[in-house]
């Protein structure tokens, strides 16, 4: 029994080490791909909610709740791709991402918080409440795009 526990601990430690290793050794272009992919997916699941809120698509509470649930996970992904090693990659990230990292991190957290709230509200299925939180979430996206993303 004790031996088995040790085994599990060793494997877990190795696993954690391996994934840490992967992130640390990831090539800048892979990191860029990681964060851009995450952003594409966030847009993919966020956009249809907006279309429903504006009446461009029929409101479907189940789809909104599903998308918002995905978004809650997706929102946590892009931050990982913003490693200093990607500084010189040709992307739309402004130099301020690195020169004002604290503000950038705060903006990222802010977006995650708003999306978390959106996922909560979406479970309720109340369109009015969802629309309000959708607007707040959109603002948190825009705030970061304005300051840290080239046009």
């Amino acid at each position, binding site marked *: 029994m004790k031996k088995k526990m040790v085994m599990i601990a060793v494997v877990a430690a190795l696993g954690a080490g391996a994934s840490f290793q992967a992130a640390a050794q990831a090539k800048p272009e892979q990191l860029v791909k990681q964060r851009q992919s995450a952003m594409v997916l966030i847009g993919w699941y966020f956009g249809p909610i907006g279309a429903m809120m504006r009446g461009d698509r029929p409101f479907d509470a189940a789809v909104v709740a599903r998308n918002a649930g995905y978004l809650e996970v997706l929102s946590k992904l892009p931050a990982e791709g913003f490693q200093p090693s990607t500084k010189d990659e040709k992307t739309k990230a402004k130099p301020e991402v690195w020169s004002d990292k604290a503000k950038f991190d705060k903006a990222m957290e802010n977006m995650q918080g708003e999306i978390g709230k959106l996922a909560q509200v979406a479970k309720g299925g109340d369109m009015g409440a969802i629309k309000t939180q959708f607007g707040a979430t*959109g603002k948190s996206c825009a705030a970061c*795009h304005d300051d840290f993303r080239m*046009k």
Partner: protein
Amino acid sequence: MSEPTRAVKVWDLPVRLFHWLLVALFLFSLLSGKMKGNWMEWHMYSGFAILALVIFRILWGFAGSTHARFSSFLAGPGACLRFAKRLLSKAPAYVAGHNPIGGWMVIILLLSLLLQAGTGLFANDDISIEGPLYKFVSKEMSDRLTAIHYYNFNVMVFFVFTHVAAVVFHVFVKKENLVSAMFTGTRNLDAATEVPAARFASSWLALILFALALVAVYLVVKRPF
């Protein structure tokens, strides 16, 4: 400075309504564009309305009252230079309609508004909203037009500031009642100012042209106002 002794009607009702509606919608567009979030939907509608107004003003520039017509106020470089000299001298600079330089400002403002509203139709914010014509262009093209939408915003604001600064100069330095004239339609001119015979077009014609502009915009954006 010779005293203004004559009250002359220069701006017809459509021009005045156009001007102040545009001011209101411009400010609303600016604010809603800054507020983002759910305000973007209203930003879009405001842009459609501005587009209709600008189209109307262009039509009115051909079919409207004398002082609204482009042919009546577009002047060559010589006239602009002479007017600039008069403006900077102590002499009065009364002109019945748009002065030669102000006339070009009208064109610049209309074109920059047209560019702004036009690029907005194809724009996307990479978050949740797209202009009604986004679907007809590639994402790359939309991004490029969106960038123009952002940059032209600054250009437009620069010209609006210049326009307002010029009006302030006319009102306080040249002692002309430009702002009240844009409300009442009547300007105070001095005896020496040449006042060409002006013909005023019917406001009903303006209403028809504006309705046509609205329909044209609706057919393009396929969205109710």
